[in-house]
């Protein structure tokens, strides 16, 4: 089923967050007047990136990442004319220009750099095509999205948006139970680490702000970043209250309450 919309309603960072948390595989298409991009993901990791401004080209990436010199670039370009990226990669590794790891790392850095341009898109259509695979002739990378998400979330400057995301500072934050996020893989700033050290269901966001000397916008930005990284969730201070069914029932006897709910169930089944 569809996963589509407009970036003005559902931001690019939120999308990445979704791809990351759901370990999605497929292609994300984004477009706005005069510009479009395609990003491929595999199990929630970035695998490939191309945009209408930037057709990725292995040799240029390697040159930009200083794995080959400009001179080598010119020579190799001639020699590898007509080679696919994958074929060129194999040639370079076999000919001793670089190891496979170096090639992949260079590509990752190159993709990440170009990919960051999408963070600024405040508007544009997006759609996700599940299951779309990397073209055979490309070299896949496996770039973790968490750091990109954290970077993107940090850049969110819109105060109105931050307030809408985190309306109340009287709420608390707690670590999510979600397995899979390894906090050690994420490059947090010292301020973010400081806030992380106060994460506890008993501390309100306001209290954390006071303790870390952050103003209400700064603390929101940090909490938003941690939220997007999938690391924390917002809860009511003191932990989640227990549901109290029956409190609002006309009778107080647990047996009667239960029988009342069962009667409701039977009635609705019969509709």
């Amino acid at each position, binding site marked *: 089923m*569809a996963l589509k919309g407009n970036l003005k309603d559902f931001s690019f960072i939120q999308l990445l967050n979704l791809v990351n948390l759901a370990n999605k595989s497929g292609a994300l298409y984004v477009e706005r007047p005069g510009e479009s991009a395609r990003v491929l993901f595999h199990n929630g990791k970035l695998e490939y990136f191309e945009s209408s401004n930037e057709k990725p080209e292995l040799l240029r990436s390697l040159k930009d990442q200083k794995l080959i010199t400009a001179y080598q670039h010119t020579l190799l370009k001639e020699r590898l004319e007509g080679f696919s990226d994958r074929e060129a990669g194999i040639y370079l590794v076999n000919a001793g220009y670089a190891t496979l790891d170096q090639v992949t790392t260079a590509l990752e850095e190159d993709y990440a750099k170009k990919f960051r341009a999408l963070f600024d898109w405040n508007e544009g259509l997006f759609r996700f095509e599940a299951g779309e695979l990397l073209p055979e002739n490309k070299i896949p990378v496996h770039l973790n999205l968490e750091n990109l998400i954290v970077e993107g979330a940090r850049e969110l400057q819109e105060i109105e948006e931050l307030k809408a995301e985190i309306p109340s500072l009287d709420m608390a934050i707690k670590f999510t139970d*979600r397995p899979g996020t390894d906090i050690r893989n994420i490059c947090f700033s010292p301020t973010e680490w400081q806030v992380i050290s106060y994460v506890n269901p008993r501390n309100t966001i306001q209290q954390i702000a006071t303790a870390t000397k952050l103003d209400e916008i700064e603390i929101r930005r940090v909490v938003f970043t941690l939220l997007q990284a999938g690391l924390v969730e917002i809860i009511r201070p003191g932990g989640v209250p227990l549901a109290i069914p029956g409190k609002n029932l006309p009778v107080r006897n647990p047996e009667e309450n239960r029988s009342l709910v069962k009667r409701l169930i039977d009635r609705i089944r019969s509709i």
Partner: protein
Amino acid sequence: MQTQTVKIVVTGPFNAGKTEFIRSVSEIDVVSTEKRISATAEKIKESTTVAMDFGRITVDNDLVLFLFGTPGQKRFDFMWEILSEGMLGFIVMVDSTRPETFREARSILETFKAYAPTPYLVTANKQDLYDAWDTEDMRLALRLDPSVKILPCEATKKSSVKRVLLELLYGILKEMDDNEARQNNQEDEIS
């Protein structure tokens, strides 16, 4: 014996399908306080709920279930707290085709949770439409805890609405059992 009444509240953003949901199962014509919409910004449909919707399901001579639908538009949110008073549980309806409303849905959910710690669930409504998001994608977008139920729904279909109501009631029953087990444990520890 006096008739007992219990109430379930159906809430969610503007145009999510709350009135439709109640209409699908209510045995009386839904007493709606709909109004034709004049503000152009919100004119994606003809009418909206301004105070509440009110549906009814009679269980037997002694028991009646009321379904209350809240107004979706923010400017009527003063009604929410009044409507949530004494509810048995609540349902947050979300239009699966409109990601622009997800953030608001999240905030409505938080607000209702704060009114009363009663069981609730979320429905991903309008699943019949081509643009509908998957429930699991919506779970992440709405930042729902894995323990919170999110169900696909078509408010226009009675069978779908029935399923949602039943799931909520099963949830309520389960909470009752869990609470009692917890209380018994505590008593054991004390004695």
